[in-house]
């Protein structure tokens, strides 16, 4: 039996995936997940207190990680829907990888917030039974649920042809599995014809985009509504979140797809190459708009009495390194010239480096955004440390580890590659 599985795997895996480096990568990810599982278990057995940061700062890394992941998911949805919703055929190349990434980022984002909630099991029940329509959090939870459904269907529709092809090529168990995954039986029915129609994909994509953007807007509003937190309050964040979602989406797609090709030592298809440089240009443009937004936020904040103190935390307080180095330099300013240079020289590595820098910058930015806002009005003399607690780092590491593990497996077993899919051909 084991030999049989091995034989199957041998057919699928390429050289790189049989190398020791690959096994090391997977085992690192697996151990990260295991450690996180241990932290989660401790929190269930003892109390959630092991994740506690300070009694007054109650939303920390799990929330910021959630925000980072769901914003990325919306961003990926924005980029991919340029293809099959807005009819830009060249973007259809990235549809499969983009939608798959959007799906796994939102799922692991939800896992991150689920571990933060005291009673995630009640959340589902009472969200349905006793909704509070005035609560942005209710809208966010509900809309993201719809979004997950739409985006799953969207990926399935995109991948179906490829899954069918794999079922035909394979034998035995694999054939059955892929056959079921593609719901091959439907093909002869009337539903099969509907499934093949490009219009259906467009409709599902549009539904995912609308629910995703609305959910995303309520996520921004969730923070924007809170009058008692001067830094969050106002309509700035709902709007800015949309912008940052867009550049996160481009950055994720560029970093992950180029990274995958490089690691697998595969050739990047020619038409994808030209799209990469186009996306890099758009990313540079979005980053410069983002910079303007940040300048506006800081400048405006300095003239709003209640916002001055929290803003100063960034400009020259405990968050200044995170702000100036990560958010401004690594996350926004430096990537712009790197991207432009890389586009001019048609240098793939430059794009990879710049987009990864954007992701790192945005990750730190999310953390600051969540934590710094909670310092005022209650904490008067500052905190001894603004770094996340050790246990939380372990847990979040595991969530990210699981995310990359899922992607790694997906990149091997599922159709993600930048090829034109059957619908348009």
């Amino acid at each position, binding site marked *: 039996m084991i030999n049989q599985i091995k034989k199957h795997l041998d057919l699928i895996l390429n050289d790189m995936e049989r190398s020791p480096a690959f096994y090391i990568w997977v085992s690192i990810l697996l151990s990260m997940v295991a450690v996180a599982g241990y932290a989660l278990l401790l929190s269930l057995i003892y*109390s*959630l207190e092991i994740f506690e940061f300070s*009694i007054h700062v*109650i*939303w920390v890394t799990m929330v910021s990680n959630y925000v980072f992941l769901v914003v990325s998911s919306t961003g990926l949805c*924005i980029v991919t*829907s*340029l293809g099959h919703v*807005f*009819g*830009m*055929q*060249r973007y259809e190349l990235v549809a499969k990888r983009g939608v798959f990434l959007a799906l796994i980022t939102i799922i692991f984002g939800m896992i991150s917030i689920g571990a*933060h*909630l*005291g*009673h*995630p099991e*009640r*959340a589902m029940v*009472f*969200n349905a*039974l*006793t*909704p*509070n329509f*005035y*609560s*942005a*959090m*209710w809208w966010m*939870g509900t809309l993201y649920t719809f979004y997950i459904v739409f985006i799953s269907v969207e990926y399935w529709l995109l991948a179906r042809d490829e899954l069918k092809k794999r079922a035909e090529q394979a034998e035995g168990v694999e054939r059955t599995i892929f056959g079921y995954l593609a719901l091959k039986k439907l093909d002869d029915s009337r539903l099969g014809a509907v499934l093949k129609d490009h219009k259906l994909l467009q409709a599902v994509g549009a539904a995912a985009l609308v629910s995703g*953007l*609305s959910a995303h*807007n*309520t996520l921004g*509003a*969730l923070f*924007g*509504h*809170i*009058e*008692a*937190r001067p830094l969050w309050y*106002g*309509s700035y964040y*709902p*709007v800015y979140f*949309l*912008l940052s979602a*867009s550049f996160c989406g481009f950055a994720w797609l560029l970093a992950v797809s180029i990274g995958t090709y490089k690691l697998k030592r595969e050739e990047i298809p020619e*038409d994808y190459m030209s*799209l990469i440089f*186009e996306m890099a240009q*758009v990313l540079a443009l979005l980053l410069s708009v983002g910079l303007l937004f940040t300048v506006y936020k800081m400048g405006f904040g300095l003239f709003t009495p209640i916002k001055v103190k929290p803003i100063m935390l960034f400009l020259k307080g405990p968050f200044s390194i995170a702000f100036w180095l990560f958010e401004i330099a690594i996350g926004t300013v430096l990537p712009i010239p790197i991207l432009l240079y890389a586009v001019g020289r048609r240098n793939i590595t430059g794009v990879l480096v710049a987009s990864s820098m954007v992701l790192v910058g945005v990750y730190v930015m999310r953390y600051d955004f969540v934590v710094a806002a*909670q310092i005022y*009005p*209650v904490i*008067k003399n500052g905190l001894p440390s603004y770094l996340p607690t050790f246990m939380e780092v372990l847990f979040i590491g595991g969530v990210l580890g699981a995310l990359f593990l899922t992607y790694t497996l997906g990149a091997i077993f599922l159709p993600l590659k930048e090829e*034109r899919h059957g619908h348009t051909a």
Partner: protein
Amino acid sequence: MNMAVTNIGRRRFLKMLGSASVYATLGAAGVAGAQTQRYGKLVDTTRCIGCKRCMSACKRWNKLEVERDEMVTDRETDLSAQNWVVVNLRADAKNREERTYEHWACQHCIQPACAGVCPVRAIIKLPRGNVVVNEKKCIGCRYCYQACPYKVPRFDFVKRVTRKCHLCYDRIPLLNYMKPACVAACPVEALSFDYKHEIILEAKRRVSKEKNARYILGLKEAGGTDMLTILPARPQDLGLVVAPRKVVNQNLDKLRITGAGFMGVSGLAGLMYTYATLTQGKNKRDHDQSD
């Protein structure tokens, strides 16, 4: 000083007698009418001696944990899932000599921000005035803590729910007369409990008559609260958390912010559409090449 207290007590007693006869004549309708009467708690910090009996009475009634040394007078304590009421010594910033004990708990806002944001309606404002967390329903998201202008609802890491003072909603119904545990325990009548309009009158009377009583917290703050506190100075001078003198997190305001976001959404969709149409030519070229 004590005269005033007995006044409240006597008036309440007469009212009880009065309402008893009204109940008798009107029956159930009368009872329902009386129930919608709003109650309030009045804290007079100028009378408080810092004995912390309210704290321990609250803990006893609500079966909360007592931490070591917490009940020592002058020991600084913070609200927590086990401390629904705290008593702390505060000095007036303008006059360091003058120090008072501040009895601090949930203010039971008339339009509570905490209840407005709770996604599952686990917090409700009862008609009598109590703002109560339903601990069987709370999902532990801590959004209410973020929204509360006073930062009152605290998370219980063991029970995994948010807990706070509920103005003893489980005591008031008894005969409509039982006071909250903290009020009943106070030895110097620094706390009192009555119909809301009565305590407003009483608070105003004390501020106009008594020397140290200068400020009533809760008339305007957060749009008005059902707990009023008589302070010897303005709350900001005493180092208390200052709430805006208007309703916090009004629904209209939430709508405005969400609406701005949706304008952003449509703007983004417009930009995507423009991007798609402006670069249409490029599409064709790529496609031709790949064909």
